[in-house]
């Protein structure tokens, strides 16, 4: 269907201008970048903004900047741009590899990283993946700006800590320490993933022991979460001792995982699915840590 209601299209060129517009429009406007979610909400008449504030012409919002410590991704960077950016391929190869598989090629060309995080669909690759990089987001309003961790941003499906007068301007990912290995696993039969797992193992100097870890599961519950139980279980473990323990670690970590019933499945099914996916992702990451080829292939599963 065509878009049912006309709207005005504002095209600010600075973030200040956009934030000011947003404040003045007081709930009557919607922030617009790729439109991959917004235009669908408009088609379904779920929202009725009088105007759209196009963020794509704002200087700097479409930039990717890498430093020694972090990667700063502007909110209007498309998935496709992120996937192909040389700095990302060099410093955050897991991100480049995983973002290649978001939705489909058309959504990746139009959809933006900021839009994905701000919309907070619980079935999201970036929302899970970025948590393994201790991500934080910058929220900008007319009267000031603040920084939140990704965990603080996501509250519930389609609900974030972003206030109506704030613009999500950028997301920042930490650079992993030297010698870290990672894995990203997504399972699903649909456009949006049913289960997503991101694993980071930070190894010690000898590369024989896990110093610290990030283990994130998403898409099965209202928001992506770190599995601290699993992270504590692997921290300090020699790699050789880990392999036989993966079953038990994955089971313990997902036993009380909050899952959500929807068209992707029932809560118990999703908990079991999460258990299996966490185990598989850990298996791949630990194999890579040992310098081995991880050759896991499973139905409807993409492993990066």
């Amino acid at each position: 269907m065509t878009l049912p209601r006309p709207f005005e299209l504002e095209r600010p060129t600075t973030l200040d201008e956009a934030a000011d517009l947003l404040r003045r429009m007081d709930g009557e406007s919607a922030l617009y970048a790729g439109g991959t979610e917004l235009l669908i909400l408009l088609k379904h008449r779920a929202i009725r903004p009088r105007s759209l504030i196009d963020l794509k012409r704002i200087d700097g919002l479409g930039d990717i900047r890498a430093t020694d410590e972090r990667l700063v991704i502007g909110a209007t960077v498309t998935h496709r741009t992120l996937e192909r950016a040389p700095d990302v391929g060099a410093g955050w190869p897991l991100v480049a590899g995983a973002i290649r598989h978001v939705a489909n090629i058309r959504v990746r060309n139009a959809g933006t990283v900021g839009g994905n995080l701000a919309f907070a669909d619980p079935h999201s690759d970036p929302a899970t993946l970025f948590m393994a990089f201790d991500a934080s987001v910058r929220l900008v309003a007319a009267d000031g700006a603040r920084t939140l961790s990704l965990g603080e941003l996501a509250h519930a499906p389609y609900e974030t800590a972003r206030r109506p007068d704030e613009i999500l301007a950028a997301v920042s990912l930490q650079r992993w320490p030297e010698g870290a290995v990672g894995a990203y696993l997504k399972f699903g039969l649909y456009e949006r993933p049913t289960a997503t797992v991101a694993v980071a193992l930070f190894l010690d100097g000898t590369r024989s022991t896990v110093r610290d870890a990030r283990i994130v599961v998403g898409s099965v519950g209202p928001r992506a979460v770190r599995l601290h139980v699993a992270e504590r279980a692997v921290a300090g473990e020699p790699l050789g001792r880990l392999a036989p323990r993966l079953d038990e670690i994955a089971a313990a970590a997902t036993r009380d995982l909050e899952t959500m019933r929807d068209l992707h499945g029932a809560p118990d099914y999703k908990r079991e699915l999460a258990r299996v996916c966490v185990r598989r992702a850990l298996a791949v990451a630990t194999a890579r840590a040992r310098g081995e080829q991880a050759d896991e292939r499973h139905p409807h599963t993409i492993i990066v």
Partner: protein
Amino acid sequence: MRITRDIALSASPANVWPTLWDVARMVECVPGCVDATEIEPRRRYAARMTQQVGPIRVSIPLDIEVTEEKPGWCLVLKAKGRDALVATGVSVTVRLDLGPREAGSSLRLDAEWRVLGQVAALGHPIIQRRAEGMVDEFAARLERALGR
């Protein structure tokens, strides 16, 4: 969909009942419910329910009817309405049973509700979570209202 909750209140049933029976006042304890007006005393009321679920904001004019009443201990309300702008309709039947407990009253709330239309497209689990949050908040506000 259904929510059942046992709400512990610190006032005795005799003190709780008048607040419940003041339907307009009780309805305003429901988060998002405003402008409660009496149309027919003890029988019909009107109110407006405004909620934001994710990106969708609904504002529903509610028609509320008291369908059953056992003075002092039971009240059944039916409420329904529709926000034509976002094509969302809601209908809910709430049964309130008031009984004594050691340190005050126990109010059993049994609500059967239906949401149809656009908001329902977000998925019932999301609405159920919101509805449960609303019941929790209702309980807290009712306790505060009784305290005055």
